């Protein structure tokens, strides 16, 4: 047969990150996929042996630039749980606000890149144009656009004043309008649906069985959102996990699109309910014990395993990122698809390789 072997990545314009897939293609139909990782592997879990547990906050933020707040939050939750620190309620709400802002920018980024993966450049530009507004919010409230670095063990580093809150609310309104204007194209346009509907289908059973998380899992009809555990201030907010049942790229797009709007809603709720008070507490002592901490990243459930034995350095830090759980899904979805669908399907899990390899 006419077998073609393609090295897909690590440098490839469709993949912003160095993931390598050895694709075997026959007449543009993918028959075999073997991934190769290790192009971003830094070994930062190991850094916990030479950095103390406070400094590790900044290190874990740099596991992934797109969801840095949430990494730091997950880590801080773990340490706080281990040390029995009660975070002030205002800090909890601020964490929700920043994490949801991050989810928004991450989803907007993804929606843009996804549009780009099927060659819709204009749509990509529109999503990224909107995203810049979210980035502005980040920069003005925290001092940095991407790695906002607001979390510390025991609370947050920055506060929001009422002026900022009202400014954010007006910006959010604009963002909501602009996103809604793109809804029709993203979800109903003929050429777009032609490229997404029915591509990379994961049934509910498959998605659950191979351990996918986040929008991939919810796109296949499984109701699972770690935020319902009620960490930070999520237990005081009103929301339902976004679920779609088709399990294809289109369903995942829909989940992420709806979650973007949901994040706007959550930020509004958090801003209306935010109590006054301290934003952090003083941390005394050293962590000891073993804890598993979980939060919901834009890409899905993030899990930190932290083991400490009373030193300022942690004994073991283990990070299970959502993409790590979703990569087996690529291997399940790709065979049988056309080569032109490969970028679409690979992006549909929203791969974050720097998360995966740490």
């Amino acid at each position, binding site marked *: 047969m006419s077998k*073609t*072997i*393609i*090295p897909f990545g690590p440098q*490839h*314009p*469709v993949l912003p990150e160095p993931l390598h897939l050895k694709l075997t293609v026959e007449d*543009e139909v993918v028959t075999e996929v073997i991934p190769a990782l290790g192009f971003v592997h830094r070994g930062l879990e190991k850094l916990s042996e030479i950095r103390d547990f406070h400094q590790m906050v900044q290190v874990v933020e740099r596991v992934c630039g797109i969801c840095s707040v949430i990494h730091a939050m997950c880590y801080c939750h773990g340490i706080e749980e281990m040390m029995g620190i009660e975070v002030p309620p205002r800090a909890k709400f601020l964490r929700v606000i920043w994490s949801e802002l991050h989810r928004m920018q991450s989803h907007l980024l993804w929606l843009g890149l996804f*549009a*780009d*993966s*099927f*060659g*819709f*450049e*204009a*749509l*990509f*530009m*529109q999503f990224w*144009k909107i995203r810049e507004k979210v980035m502005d919010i980040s920069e003005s409230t925290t001092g940095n656009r991407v790695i906002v670095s607001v979390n510390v063990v025991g609370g947050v580093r920055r506060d929001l004043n009422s002026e900022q809150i009202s400014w954010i609310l007006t910006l959010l309104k604009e963002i909501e309008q602009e996103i809604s204007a793109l809804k029709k*194209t993203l979800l109903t*346009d003929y*050429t*777009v649906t*032609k*490229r997404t509907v029915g591509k990379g289908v994961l049934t509910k059973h498959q998605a659950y069985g191979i351990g996918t998380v986040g929008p991939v899992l919810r796109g296949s009809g499984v109701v699972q959102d770690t935020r319902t555990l009620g960490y930070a201030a999520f237990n005081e907010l009103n929301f339902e996990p976004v679920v779609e049942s088709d399990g294809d790229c289109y369903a995942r797009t829909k989940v992420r699109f709806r979650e973007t709007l949901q994040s706007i809603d959550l930020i509004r709720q958090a801003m209306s309910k935010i109590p006054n008070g301290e934003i952090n507490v003083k941390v005394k002592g050293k962590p000891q014990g073993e804890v598993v901490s979980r939060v919901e990243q834009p890409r899905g459930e993030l899990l930190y395993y932290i083991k400490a034995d009373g030193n300022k350095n942690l004994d073991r830090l283990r990070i299970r990122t959502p993409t790590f759980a979703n990569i087996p899904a690529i291997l399940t979805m790709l065979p049988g698809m*056309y*080569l*032109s*669908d*490969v*970028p679409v399907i690979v992006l549909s899990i929203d791969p974050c390789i720097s998360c995966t390899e740490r």
Partner: protein
Amino acid sequence: MSMSMQILLVVLGVVAGPLIGGLIGGLDRIITARFQSRVGPPVLQPFYDVNKLLAKEYTVVNAWQAFCAYSYLAASMISVALFFLQSDMLVIYFVQAVGAIFLVVGALSSTSPYSQIGAHRELLQMLAYEPLLVLVIIGIYIETGSFKISAVYSWDKPLLLKLPFLFVVLGYALTIKLRKSPFDLSTSHHAHQELVKGVTTDYSGPLLGLIEIAHWYDVVLFLCFCSLFWATNIAGMIILISITYFLEILIDNVSARMTWRWMLGNVWAIGLTLSLVNLIWLYQQ
């Protein structure tokens, strides 16, 4: 036509072709940028690009690439020159096909799968638009009774009135040839696609510059074909081309890239049906 007149026309075609093509490319990029609410590059950007490419280091994957790039350019040049000589449309069509074939052959000469797959998609694109182009030419022939462009220019009614569907069919061919979405399968002007740059992946430096110039000739040639549909006066021609090109940019910006299976099915089904309808209508008269 006198000999000196002919030579003048050929020179005009060969010189003006890339100038117009580059300028159109620049306008295209500006309008595209505006559609995406960006500022976009200066209008002379394509010329800067090509100038720079021509001055870059000469690197090749395979020396045969050079042969193919030059032949592509030569064929495109000749086809535009033939058009300005008001020659036979079918001959022009065959000559421009030579260019496309050399582009493919050059891409096939590299072992990179991206270039190879790009070449095959280019072939599939040719498979899609070439029959349509022939049918458009046949339609013009049936209306004017000649394959020669000079006959079209001496025809007193705009062809668009008699060949509206065939103009749409030509639009399909134009979209494919301009490498616009949804048909930018084999290579595109921006790199975000699964095939990196498809057919042009392994061309670099001066050879890529030549290919870009050849592409301008192709664009000019196809727009000239469009202009035949309102050949009665110059203003009509320019308006028709402008509207057509604007629509092309619009379509590029409002659609995703499709797959070649969809392209073959869609272009053949709709294109052939439209041409059949138009041709039968012409036969009836």
